[in-house]
């Protein structure tokens, strides 16, 4: 029965203790804890993390590979926020490739009630009971997920966060640096739009941390470009239909049609909805930026409707995270830093008309 929860070499304890922990979770001998509590979440990644730290994987998106192989019989649970969003689908696909490449088992789970933090906790608790070896999680809330992350650590199970990170206790955080993505895309658009005009921001669901950080990146950048004015910033909940509806309504406001130069949506879905609305209103000279580099958005870039997007590569991020976990489970190797974004500067994540063909045919995460 290979149910050893984990073999963390970092805080290696003796084998009998681990066995005892397995036999009786409630027994006085505590299970083999892993202690990542010093890993407090940070919102921004260091420059080194973005550029120089060596990664155990090469490539990005569908081209990603690694030499790492699992030495044990690991099951890694990949838990996303929901099961209907393409980003989550990308995470699962990445996990599947990692499973094949590294020789492990992966389990992909998500709450039945979309984005429910409470169900996310329940899922992790159940998986801990099942003796899973490690977690890759995309929490809906960084603080709310803490009880489950703590419980995982108690049970000696390492956790890597993708996207929104747990407030503390993750072995590592990866996925993109949201603030950074906001800044990069905003800069790109502001530089391109001729220095003046109106800007509309479509926000993610109120309360979604990734959306908030991204928005902060955009608005901070906006402050550095005094020529632009913010017309309005309204949430459309990462949802295409709502993106479209909100855009339609904003276009009805007096003067907006003449003023509007740039639309920045906190994800591709809303950006595409906004494009639908702009097209319906016969407006063609507005620059639209989105995030994620989804399949649909790529086509829109190709068609010239969408100006720019940011490749957030859930496929590669998950693959990378699993590789880091396997390395740790095999030999106790810890990441060099807490927050190593993936993709990051070194991956040239901006996708626009100049590199769209290369992206689609060679390394997009949705392939």
């Amino acid at each position: 029965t290979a149910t050893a929860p984990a073999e963390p070499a970092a805080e290696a304890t003796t084998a009998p203790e681990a066995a005892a922990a397995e036999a009786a979770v409630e027994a006085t001998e505590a299970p083999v804890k892993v202690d990542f509590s010093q890993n407090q979440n940070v919102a921004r990644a260091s420059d080194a993390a973005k550029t120089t730290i060596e990664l155990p994987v090469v490539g990005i998106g569908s081209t990603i590979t690694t030499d790492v192989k699992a030495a044990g019989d690991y099951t890694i649970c990949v838990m996303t926020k929901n099961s209907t969003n393409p980003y989550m689908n990308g995470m699962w696909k990445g996990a599947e490739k990692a499973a094949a490449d590294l020789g492990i088992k992966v389990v992909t789970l998500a709450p039945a009630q979309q984005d429910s933090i409470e169900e996310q906790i329940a899922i992790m608790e159940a998986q801990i009971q099942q003796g899973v070896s490690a977690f890759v999680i995309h929490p809906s809330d960084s603080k709310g997920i803490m009880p489950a992350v703590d419980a995982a650590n108690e049970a000696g199970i390492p956790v890597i966060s993708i996207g929104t990170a747990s407030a503390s206790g993750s072995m590592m955080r990866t996925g993109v640096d949201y603030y950074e993505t906001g800044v990069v895309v905003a800069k790109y658009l502001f530089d391109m739009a001729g220095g003046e005009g109106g800007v509309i921001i479509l926000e993610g669901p109120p309360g979604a941390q990734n959306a908030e950080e991204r928005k902060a990146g955009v608005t901070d950048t906006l402050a550095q470009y005094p020529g632009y004015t913010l017309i309005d910033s309204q949430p459309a909940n990462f949802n295409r239909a709502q993106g479209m509806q909100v855009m339609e309504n904003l276009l009805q406001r007096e003067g907006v049609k003449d003023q509007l130069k740039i639309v920045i949506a906190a994800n591709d879905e809303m950006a595409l909805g906004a494009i639908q609305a702009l097209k319906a209103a016969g407006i063609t000279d507005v620059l639209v930026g989105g995030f994620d580099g989804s399949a649909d958005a790529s086509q829109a870039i190709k068609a010239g409707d969408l100006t720019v997007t940011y490749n957030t590569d859930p496929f590669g991020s998950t693959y990378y995270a699993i590789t880091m976990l396997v390395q740790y489970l095999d030999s106790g190797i810890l990441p060099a830093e807490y927050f190593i974004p993936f993709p990051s500067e070194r991956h040239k994540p901006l996708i626009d008309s100049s590199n769209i063909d290369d992206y689609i045919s060679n390394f997009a995460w949705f392939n």
Partner: protein
Amino acid sequence: MTVKSLKKRVGALPPAVWMIAVMLVFYGLNTKNYFTASNFISILIQAAPLFVVACGQTIIVLMQGTDLSLGASLNMMTVVWVVLMQKNLPIGIALPLAMGTSVFAGYLNGLIVAKMKLPPFIATLGMQNILNSIALVTSNGSSVYHEHAIYKIIAKSSFLGIPYILWIAIGCFALTMVLLKFTRFGARVISMGGNPESLKVAGYSPDLATIQAFTYTGFMTAVAGFILACRVESGNPIVGNGFEFNSVAAVLLGGTSMREGRGGVGGTVFGVLLIQILKNGLVMMNVSSIYQTAIIGIVVLFAIMLDAYIKRRQEE
């Protein structure tokens, strides 16, 4: 107890019980570490918030209504509580205040149903929207945190080997049970469901009974919000979404009928457990989440069909 009365009692159990038994066997055979105390404790803890909400929902369903504002009320309560704590109010003031908002929302529901004569479905649907707004405004849209020992104490510590969360859930169960069976309040709730006219001729205002019932449900929601906030150690403006429907489903799976004031909180226990054990087991069995929603839907439908079938058989 004679064999016959035992048989009758067993026959009266909601079908959720049998389905739970089947599921336990199935999961036990298909997963590791299933029949362990810690697993069951963790299932029960997961079930606790829904259960407490469902205690309140039972009351409303007994009165032939549904309360769709419960999820939003949970959202509001967790957020208001944590925000008040952030403002450095002592917990002795912050918690009652926050719970008060949920209770007040319940009271307003009652008022709208009783005095404005709106169907509960619509009254609470409107209220759901209003409370969600309040939760968003209070939290400024995102989840809110505050460092305090209380969350961990409630969520993690136990008394006599049973976690506090479960004690609270047991308390809510006992309270609702006693209220329904042994107080005039309970008799009024059941008579509102069975025949509101009867209450009127007994000299009690059905309006008042309605308001009391919704207020009590608001109180149960407040308690559930307390548990939920402790469990996620934060206030979250969407944490309660879905609780309103899940609680109605649990109540009905527990054999409480939307007509005639039949049923009670005893069955609700099984309804909640059915949902929670099902979900937990699917996760334990590593069933990909893509399939989970469909499976849960099918099991819920099946349980309801079974319940309807058994009830019809009993009537014949």
